[in-house]
């Protein structure tokens, strides 16, 4: 496990034939067993189907099938104004609504060139990192549930999640679908009492991370089941467009917070954990370490947050018509790179509104990672990709 250095070069030597998954020949006699895992299945994270062909217990072929939650968000947005799409972005990746809001606000601010006040930027960072903590804690909890821990570590994670969701409710009025970010700032200002509440929750979080780490990371079962399973090579990861903790677990040092420096992330000191092997265990540990880095970022933001407005007073939020043109804005969401591509034709509604879903693109290599492993490992590998169907299908 190495921390980030300042160079971001990675050796991308490309052996031939690496672009497609390798063929596995079934050995022995008999037929292949074709199994449809899903769409209604206890271990798929939502309505998702995998058609696997098995030779005994080994996976020979795996085809993912989605679309069971396709709610045509992109088409709806073409008929609504820019602000009206904001509540729909909450429902994309419904575990992390605040980072979805932030990505959309960033894309529109790129399109129109609006400035965001300082205090709003700090609030965005605090809320974004709290969302990252929530997401990574739940992801690790669900991963242990898929290993067979029957929900108890998940409930430890959810206990912390509840504390953070109470903070969100105190600030924005809703636990989950917050609809909080606006183009040019945030909707509501935070009171000093709320910031003190964040400080109180933050003081309890490192202890929770220690507890999780002790409980799970020296656990024999976790190590035996997760190490060496679902290996993803870095060249394939970059070429397949993988982003987020999956990419960094394969050893590629690419964190959009460091590369693009959107918002005010260049003011914070934090490290980017990298993995060595690219297996399920590395993705597990990367999420845990990123949670710890998020604690540091929230701590720095709470110390430095200035006063002032949270919304640009000259910003026109409703009924605004951006100039014709297009923009692509992206953030480092907890699941990966969440980007919005907007084409404006000068009217109040976007002409084309496209969401770049990290979960969908991270699933491109699901087949590559699962070939040759057992069915039980497929569940684990799929859990380590950490997808949310609302984002895959939009």
């Amino acid at each position, binding site marked *: 496990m190495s921390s980030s250095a300042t160079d971001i070069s990675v050796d991308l030597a490309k052996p031939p034939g690496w672009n497609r998954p390798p063929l596995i020949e079934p050995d022995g006699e008999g037929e292949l067993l074709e199994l449809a895992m899903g769409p209604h299945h206890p271990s798929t994270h939502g*309505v998702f189907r995998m058609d696997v062909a098995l030779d005994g217990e080994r996976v020979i072929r795996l085809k993912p099938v989605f679309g*069971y939650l396709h709610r*045509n968000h992109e*088409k*709806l947005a073409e008929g609504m104004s820019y602000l009206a799409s904001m509540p729909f972005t909450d429902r994309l990746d419904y575990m992390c609504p605040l980072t979805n809001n932030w990505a959309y606000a960033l894309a529109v601010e790129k399109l129109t060139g609006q400035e965001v006040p300082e205090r709003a930027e700090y609030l965005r960072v605090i809320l974004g990192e709290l969302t990252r903590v929530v997401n990574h804690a739940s992801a690790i909890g669900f991963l242990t549930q898929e290993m067979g821990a029957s929900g108890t570590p998940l409930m430890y994670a959810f206990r912390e999640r509840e504390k953070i969701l109470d903070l969100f409710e105190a600030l924005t009025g809703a*636990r989950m679908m917050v609809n909080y970010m606006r183009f040019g700032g945030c909707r509501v200002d935070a009171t000093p009492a709320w910031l003190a509440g964040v400080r109180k929750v933050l003081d309890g979080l490192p202890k929770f991370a220690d507890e999780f780490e002790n409980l799970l990371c020296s656990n024999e079962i976790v190590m035996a089941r997760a190490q060496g399973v679902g290996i993803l090579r870095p060249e394939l990861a970059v070429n397949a467009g993988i982003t987020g903790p999956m990419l960094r677990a394969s050893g590629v040092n690419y964190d959009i917070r460091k590369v693009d420096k959107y918002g005010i992330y260049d003011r914070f000191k934090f490290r980017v954990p990298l993995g060595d092997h690219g297996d399920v265990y590395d993705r597990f540990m990367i999420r845990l370490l990123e949670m710890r880095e998020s604690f540091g970022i929230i701590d720095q933001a709470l110390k430095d947050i200035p006063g002032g407005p949270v919304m640009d007073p000259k910003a026109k939020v409703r009924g605004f018509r951006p100039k014709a043109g297009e923009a692509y804005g992206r953030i480092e969401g907890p699941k990966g790179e969440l980007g919005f591509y907007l084409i404006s034709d000068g009217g109040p509604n976007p002409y084309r509104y496209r969401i770049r879903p990290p979960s969908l693109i991270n699933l491109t290599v699901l087949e590559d990672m699962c070939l040759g492993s057992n069915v039980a490992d497929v569940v684990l590998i799929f859990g380590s990709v950490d997808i949310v169907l609302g984002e895959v299908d939009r």
Partner: protein
Amino acid sequence: MIISGTVTKKMAPQVVRLYNQMAEPKYVIAMGACAISGGPFKQGYNVLKGIDRYIPVDVHIPGCPPRPEALLHAFITLQKKIDGQSLTGENRPRHLNVEAQSEFPVPVQGEHDLEPASNPGVWPVEIKTGTKGLGTRD
């Protein structure tokens, strides 16, 4: 069965099939605005405007998303509903009633929409079309 979240037309046949496979006595809770009527995504070509088009629903939980307390209230409401049913007479539950229908036809994914657009015994309003697609409306 708790149906939480949006039911899309791609998923609807699976949900109806699952309902048919459930053993009696069976109850359905539709959780969230999307499962009740399509919710915020009602103008969707792939969104089913409420799962009660195809299967009977006992308790509806409004909200987007519903609060945890609302879900608990729904369970209590369902328990009260079950307590209110008697063993004989008009008010008896479905599994004691020979004529009551407990399996419903599964819709088929057609070229433009699900066919049929709703199950006639379950959804009282007649929906005119399920087969319009590209082109002009008549």
